[in-house]
């Protein structure tokens, strides 16, 4: 969109920097530390995820009461609510196997590149490949469903 506020992208950029710095500081950008949590050798990880969830939860709860709309987009403040279906379980389980095998998730992988972890490009390449495979497959099955419906 060309009619975006001039501060829209700068704010996203600054938010990303703080986000990435936090992932570095918490060592979530290091697959070893995530694997140490999953193997019960260091239980620190929940402090990162739930600490971040509490901070964002306060903002998600308060902002709609303070303002009607976000200043840079005019969009209303809404919570992140997604409909539940079987995909949440299937996708969550597939993600769980991948996370448990590699010790890395998408945001942490970007931050990992920033802390110097060139080897993480293997994981990023895999993530793009996986995202492409499911998108290719789901785009095709979506088109097929539409075609079947259209024939009715």
């Amino acid at each position, binding site marked *: 969109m060309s009619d975006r506020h001039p501060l*829209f*992208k700068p704010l*996203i*950029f*600054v*938010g*990303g920097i*703080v*986000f*990435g*710095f*936090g*992932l*570095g*500081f918490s060592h979530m950008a290091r697959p070893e*530390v995530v694997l140490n949590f*999953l193997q019960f050798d260091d239980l620190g990880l929940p*402090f990162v*995820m739930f*600490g*971040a969830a*509490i*901070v964002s939860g306060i*903002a*998600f709860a308060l902002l709609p009461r303070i303002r009607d709309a*976000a200043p840079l987009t005019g*969009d*209303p*403040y809404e919570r*992140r*609510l*997604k409909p539940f279906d079987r995909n*949440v*379980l*299937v*996708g*969550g389980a597939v*993600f769980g*196997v*991948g996370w*448990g095998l590699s010790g890395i998730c*998408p*945001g942490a992988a*970007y*931050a990992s590149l920033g*802390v110097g*972890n060139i*080897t*993480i490009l293997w*994981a*990023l390449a*895999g*993530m793009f490949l*996986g*995202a*492409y495979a*499911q*998108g*290719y497959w789901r785009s095709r099955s*979506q088109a097929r469903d539409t075609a079947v419906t259209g024939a009715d």
Partner: protein
Amino acid sequence: MVADPVLLQAVADLFPNGISRYAVGGLLVGLGTVLIYIGTGIPAGASTFLESTLSYVSDQSRFQQYVGSRDWRLVFTAGIILGGLAFAATFQSGLVTSSLYEPGTTGQLYEVAGVTLWTTDVQPWRLFVGGILVGIGTRIGKGCTSGHGVCGVGSASKTSLVGVMTFLTVAIGTAQVVAALGVSP
């Protein structure tokens, strides 16, 4: 109150690196999310970037639905990478120290132009195969550790709570099995 030495030892075993680096890092991750939310109303997750960026090179409908957000998602990811580098240039390099930051002993450190960088010992095949499954799973499951784990849980979304419980449980099982099979690191 006198602290029980057995209890203290148990806590030290469970948290060999303390909890402050995790808690402070988590607060910063939350703060980054909140900054973006205050200005834009967007609860940003990290994994949609994978599909939105694929829309530049593929016209599949699953990717094209993200054309409207692909530019700022690229900016968000660039920020995350730069934030990681800013951490490397300060705390990881020892330029800034704090009692809240525990450097730890994982992986390998190396230096480039005075900045201490870090690289993993985890084997590339684990990263690559795991990455493929992360790419498939986060997109089918409607979110990752930031989308579901931070924004969704912060929204008290039941979908996200179920999503987090699912991937957390499966990841613990997977990591335990992989370790039991003798794969290390």
